[in-house]
């Protein structure tokens, strides 16, 4: 199934999805593509379905119909367990906030995806070393990393640990859902610099969601939600 010739890291075609329940929010995407190594910003109003779209791309939720290919592999037809494994191997995710298991150490948090992704684990080599190399590059001090639990870190530090978790083992696609909205302007710029640098270093494609248009110039391309998706708010079929 893997089509190595395709230039796309991500390709969506005729995707339809709606949340369970009456009058549930629904989403239709007729076509959306991201090239390998591209950095794309997805802009949209609050409630426009950005996070919903990311859930579909990550394979956490499955669309009613359509095709979603990550790195050329069709995810929609996969059994749920295979999709979870595929996500672990191929996709790194950064949330807006509360990215980390508060009771686990920062390093354990970073190593978490490797538990579910043997290939990625093999690529990462020694997990601890790889994790610390990433956090060094992301400007996290070693004594910060030595903290016994992740909840002692500041929000900015936690977001950087989350980036390290998304990047460990160099997955092909990084999905970031408003990772900077909890940071002040200065930290935001700094955070983006680090994120871009590490994505390039790992050769990963980046899809980042935001409602802040001022970030657009920093990306290769920015896409508006309304340009790629139609929202439906009809009764579930």
């Amino acid at each position, binding site marked *: 199934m893997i089509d190595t010739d395709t230039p796309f890291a991500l390709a969506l075609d005729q995707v339809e999805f709606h949340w369970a329940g009456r009058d549930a929010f629904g989403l239709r995407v007729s076509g959306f593509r991201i090239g390998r190594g591209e950095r794309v910003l997805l802009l949209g109003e609050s409630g426009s379905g950005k996070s919903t779209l990311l859930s579909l791309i990550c394979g956490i939720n499955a669309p009613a119909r359509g095709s979603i290919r990550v790195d050329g592999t069709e995810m929609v037809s996969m059994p749920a367990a295979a999709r979870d494994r595929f996500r672990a191997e191929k996709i790194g995710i950064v949330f807006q906030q509360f990215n980390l298991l*508060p009771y686990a150490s920062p390093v354990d948090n970073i190593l978490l995806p490797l538990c579910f992704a043997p290939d990625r684990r093999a690529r990462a080599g020694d997990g601890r070393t790889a994790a610390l190399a990433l956090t060094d590059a992301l400007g996290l001090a070693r004594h910060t990393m030595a903290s016994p639990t992740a909840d002692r870190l500041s929000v900015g530090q936690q977001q950087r640990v989350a980036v390290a978790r998304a990047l460990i083992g160099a997955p092909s696609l990084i999905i970031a859902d408003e990772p900077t909205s909890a940071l002040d302007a200065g930290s935001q710029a700094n955070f983006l610099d680090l994120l871009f640098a590490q994505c390039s270093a790992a050769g990963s494609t980046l899809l980042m969601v935001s409602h802040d248009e001022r970030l657009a110039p920093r990306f290769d391309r920015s896409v508006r939600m309304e340009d790629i998706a139609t929202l439906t708010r009809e009764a579930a079929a």
Partner: protein
Amino acid sequence: MILLRLALRSLIARRLTVGLTIFAVALSVALFLGVEKVRTGAKASFGDTISDTDLIVGARSGSVQLLLYSVFRIGNATNNVTWESYQDIAARPEVDWIVPISLGDSHRQFRVMGTTAEYFERYKYRSGRALGFAEGRAFDDLFDAVIGADVAAALGYAVDDPLVVAHGLASFTNHENQPFRVAGILAKTGTPVDRTVIVSLEAIEAIHVDWQGGARIPGQATSPDEIRQMDLTPSAVTAAMIGVKSRLQIFELQRSINQYPEEPLLAVLPGVALQELWGIVGIAETALIAVSGMVVATALLGMAAMIFSGLNERRREMAILRAVGARPLTIVGLLMLEAVLMALIAVLLGIALLYTGLWALRPYVDAAFGLYLPIDTLSSREGLVAIGVILAAAVTSLFPAVRAYRLSLSDGMIVRS
């Protein structure tokens, strides 16, 4: 394995609620196993109390009652066996040996038993063990007494110490004018003998010389020397232990005693009466097991409730796990692992509590109930209970785990918190 470490970390992070839950389960396990220990200990020690006696004879009452007062010194006889009846039975050809027992007096909190010196040879416990003397020897004088190990320990008596016997149980009027002497102290047996003061049948008569109908005859005080001159043949005994010449004759002898024309008597086989006693105790036993089982179930439900109530706060945590590639089943597994870990810790703690409790309470239980609880390793049955608790915890945790499964499917990666 990192997941196991995470489960442990997560438990540690919630140590207060988790700790209380574990403690509740541990207590319930300790209670359950403790009840088991006491139950089996009591059964064993009851069963070990008498052996090698073929029949016990007393006035007609219930066979359990007869067994209880004659062997266990629990309760009292309603009637006595007259000396004539006793002699008649003793004279029967089937009887190999017969030892009379006369009860009804006490020394401090301990019962006094009148018997013959043959008692020390004939009474056997724990499949044929005979009584042994720790100090001194059997009585040979009218005012000699032999005391059980617990009597000696509790009252601090040594051989040759004087003692005063009170008439009736818990009586305040002492037979002050008949000073007994400790002739011997028996070795510990773990039976009611340990808590008995043993004197001769004649001695029992001697104590009652100046008494009539439970009251002291006013102004009368016969001196010990005068008593020695009197005829002290008893008029009645409380019960008798019998050994037959051939085991085949037991039932025949039992029947003829039960049909004894002069007086309503009852002869029982100790083993059969014990069996009957189990039948009665069995109900209480079952109730006890049921109640302590219920306590374990309650504690496990409490644990399930604790996991349930934590789910909402942990939706974020589950979304993170899903995002990094965990399958919903992994999340179910993680929650069950958590429950199993808690149960495992609780069971270990419960066992530790049990043994500390046994160790601490054993002397007290021994002194108060004459029940010697053995501190040995867990029986396979108790091991099964421990494993059962852990399995039950896993099963109980299925409910919150399935709920977590549903939540993690419907939440997707978006958790609003």
